[in-house]
C-alpha cells in the first residue's frame, strides 16, 4: 500500500492535485479552455528518500513539483506536509494547499529549491556570499558575524573555497554556479529540496561531481529530495523510487529497480526502450512509439496514452485507468497492468 501522511515516515503527501492554466483568447481575454498541466495526481515522499519524477517535456513534471511545494497555487487537491519546525518528534501536518500565504512563510524555510539553469537563477549583481546569505536575511535569521561563519560553512560543504565568497556568479563555471545554488538552498536547513533538472545543463564530468555532492549532502544534512529530470540514467542513479508522468497524469510509481526492470505501464516500457544505452554490444530493443504527445488542453478520451499504445483495446479509448496498486509499493495506471508482459531494462 502507498503510505500516507498518517505515517510519521512520510514527509509530504499529495492528494488528487490539479493545476490548470487558463487559455485566454480575444480582446476580452476570455477563458476559452484550460491546459491541464497537472491532472489529478497523488503521491507521497518519505523522509530521507529521493523520489525521481520523469517524463517528457511538457508532461507537467515541473508544474507538479512546484505545485506540490506551493510555488504555484493548486487548482484543486491537498498537499500535506509534515513540519518539524517546532522540533517536536513526529512534527505537525499542514495542508499547504489550504494555508493562507501568511502562514506559509515559516514553512517555506523547510522546503527549498534548486533550478536547472545555474546562470539564470542567481542574481548577477550579488556576490556569492550575499546570494547564500539572502534567504537567512529574508527570514530574519541574519546574525552578523555568526552568519558569516555559517555562509562560509555552507560554501565549503558544497566544495567552494573561501576566496570565492566575494566573487560574482559570472566568474564561475556552470558546475560551480550550480554549487552556489545548492549552498543557497541549504541555508535555511530545509528538510525537503525540490531539484528541477539540476544537472541537465552540465557537462558529463561535472554532472558526476554534482550528483555525488547531492548524495553526500543528503546524508550530511538529512535531506529528502524530489528530483525532476528527463534523463533516465541520472534519475535511476540518484533515486530510491521513481514516478513517471504522461500528459499531466502519473502513470506509474515504483522503487527504481522494480520500475526499470519490471515496468507495468506501456508508456514506461516505451520510454525505457528509447533511452540510449552507452553499450554498443547490448543496444536496447526499441519499442516504436508512433505519433506525438497529445496537446494537454485537448487530451484524448480514456487513457491519454491510448493513441500511441500498441496494447490499446476498446476500454482504453473510453475509460480513464486510475493509478492503482498492483504489487508491493508498485502502482500503475493501465487497464492491463496485471496481464501485460512488458520489456524492462536489464
Amino acid at each position, binding site marked *: 500500500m502507498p503510505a500516507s501522511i498518517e505515517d510519521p515516515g512520510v514527509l509530504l503527501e499529495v492528494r488528487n492535485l490539479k493545476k490548470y492554466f487558463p487559455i485566454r483568447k480575444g480582446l476580452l481575454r476570455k477563458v476559452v479552455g484550460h491546459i491541464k498541466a497537472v491532472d489529478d495526481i497523488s503521491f507521497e515522499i518519505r523522509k530521507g528518500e529521493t523520489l525521481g519524477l520523469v517524463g*517528457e*517535456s511538457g508532461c507537467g513534471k515541473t508544474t507538479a513539483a512546484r505545485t506540490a511545494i506551493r510555488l504555484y497555487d493548486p487548482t484543486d487537491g491537498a498537499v500535506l506536509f509534515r513540519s518539524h519546525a517546532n522540533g517536536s518528534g513526529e512534527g505537525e501536518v499542514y495542508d499547504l494547499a489550504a494555508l493562507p500565504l501568511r502562514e506559509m512563510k515559516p514553512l517555506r524555510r523547510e522546503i527549498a529549491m534548486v533550478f*536547472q*539553469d545555474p*546562470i539564470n537563477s542567481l542574481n548577477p549583481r550579488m556576490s556569492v556570499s550575499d546570494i547564500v546569505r539572502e534567504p537567512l536575511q529574508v527570514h530574519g535569521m541574519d546574525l552578523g558575524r555568526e552568519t558569516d561563519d555559517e555562509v562560509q560553512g555552507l560554501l565549503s560543504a558544497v566544495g567552494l573555497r573561501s576566496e570565492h565568497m566575494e566573487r560574482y556568479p559570472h566568474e564561475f*563555471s556552470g*558546475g*560551480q554556479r550550480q554549487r552556489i545554488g545548492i549552498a543557497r538552498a541549504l541555508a535555511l536547513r530545509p528538510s525537503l529540496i525540490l531539484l528541477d*533538472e539540476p544537472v*541537465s*545543463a552540465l*557537462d*558529463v*564530468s*561535472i*554532472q*558526476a*561531481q554534482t*550528483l*555525488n555532492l547531492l*548524495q553526500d549532502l543528503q546524508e550530511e544534512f538529512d535531506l529528502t529530495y524530489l528530483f525532476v529530470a*528527463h534523463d*533516465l*540514467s*541520472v534519475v*535511476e*542513479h*540518484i533515486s530510491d523510487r521513481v514516478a513517471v508522468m504522461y500528459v499531466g497524469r502519473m502513470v506509474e510509481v515504483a522503487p527504481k*529497480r522494480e520500475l*526499470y*526492470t519490471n515496468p507495468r505501464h506501456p508508456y514506461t516500457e*516505451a*520510454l525505457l*526502450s*528509447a*533511452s*540510449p*544505452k*552507452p*553499450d*554498443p*554490444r547490448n*543496444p536496447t530493443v*526499441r519499442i516504436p*512509439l508512433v505519433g*506525438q*504527445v497529445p496537446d494537454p488542453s485537448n487530451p484524448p478520451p480514456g487513457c491519454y496514452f491510448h493513441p500511441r499504445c500498441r496494447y490499446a483495446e476498446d476500454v482504453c479509448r473510453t475509460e480513464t485507468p486510475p493509478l492503482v496498486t498492483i504489487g508491493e509499493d508498485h502502482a500503475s495506471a493501465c487497464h492491463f497492468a496485471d496481464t501485460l508482459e512488458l520489456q524492462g*531494462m*536489464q
Partner: protein
Amino acid sequence: MSAAVLDQDVLLDVRDLQVHFDVRRGTVRALEGVNFTIRKSKTLGVIGESGSGKSVTARAIMQLLAKNGSIVSGEMLYNRQGDDSGDSEFIDIAQQPSDSQLMRDLRGGEIAMIFQEPMSSLTPVYTAGLHIGESIQLHLKPRQTVGDQMAKAIAKQNRIPREEARQIAIEMLDKVGIPRPEERVVSYPHELSGGQRQRVMIAIALSCGPKLLIADEPTTALDVTTQAQINDLMLDLQQEFGMAIMYITHDLGVIAEMAEDIAVMYLGRIVEQGATDSIFYNPQHPYTRALLRSIPRIGQTEGSRLEVIEGMVPDPFSIPTGCAFNNRCPDVMPGICDARMPELLTAGDGQRAACLLHDPDTMREVTSARVH
C-alpha cells in the same frame, strides 16, 4: 601529394587541423591539431565536453567559420566523386576559400549540415559554444511556410525550378516520416513539434543527395522518445542514401547507438579515435576511460558513487602545457606529461590514442630513469 596514398574507402581525412579565433583577450586556439578519418557511408561519432571544439571542427569542414576565425594549418582531404567517369580526386578543403565556387558547390550538394533543433528548449545546453558564431542560417524562418522554405532551399541546391522543388519537398517530407505531407507543406514552423521541425531540416539536408551529413547535436534539445525516432530515421536514411554521417554529441549513449567509429575530443584535440566497440570496451586514453566511468548506467550504479574526473575543463586561455589533460589525469606522469605533447599513436585494438603512456620513446625513458 600525400592525398594519393589515401584509400578510396575514405571520404574525408582531416590532418593536423588548427583553427584559431581572434578575440579581445588574445587568440583562442580552438583546434590544436585535429586528426580523424570519415569513411564512405559510415558514421563517425564525435564526442567531447563543451568547448572541446566539436562544432568548430564541423564548421571548418564546411568552410563556414565565424569571421574572427581562421584555419591556421592542416589539411582536410575530401574524396570527390568525378561527374561520370567514377574517378575521384582528393581536394583539400582547407585550401578553398569559403566563398569559392567549389565550396558553394560542396555545401549545396555533397556536404550538408543540421544543427540542434533551435526552437525546442528542453535544456539550454552547452551555451558556451552554441551562441558563438552561429552565423550560417540553416534554421527554419518563423514567418514562411515549411513548403516555401523547403522548395526554395531545394531549388537552389539542385538548380531546378521551384515547382519541381516543391514536389521533391513533399516526397522528402514523406521520407522523413511526416504524416500527410501535402497538408504539412503549408504549415508554419511553430505548428510543427520540435521533432517534426528536425525532420524537416533533415529532409532539406538530404534533398540534394549529400555524401556527407554533418549532424551537430541534432537531438540534444529533443525528448528521449523523439530523439530515438530521429536517430532511427537517420540510420534508415543512411541505409537508403548511403551517405556518411559525422554525428556530434556529448551523449555517450547516443554515440554508442549511432556510430561505427568514434573520435573523442578534449580541448581542441582528438585524444582517441577508433572503432566504437574498442572505444567502449577497450579505451586507451585516460580521458576516454574517465569519461566512461563517470556516467551513470542503468542497473549498475546501485548505491554507489560515480567516479569523477577531478577539476574542470580549463578555459581556453589557461590550457596546461604538454598534454592538455595533465592537470586532471589520474595517470599523469609528473615532469613528463606537462613537458611534452603526446601524438596520436596506435594503441589497444588498433585505435589511436594521444597519451604519452602509449609513446614507446617516452616510456623507455621513464623506465630507464627508474632503473638508474
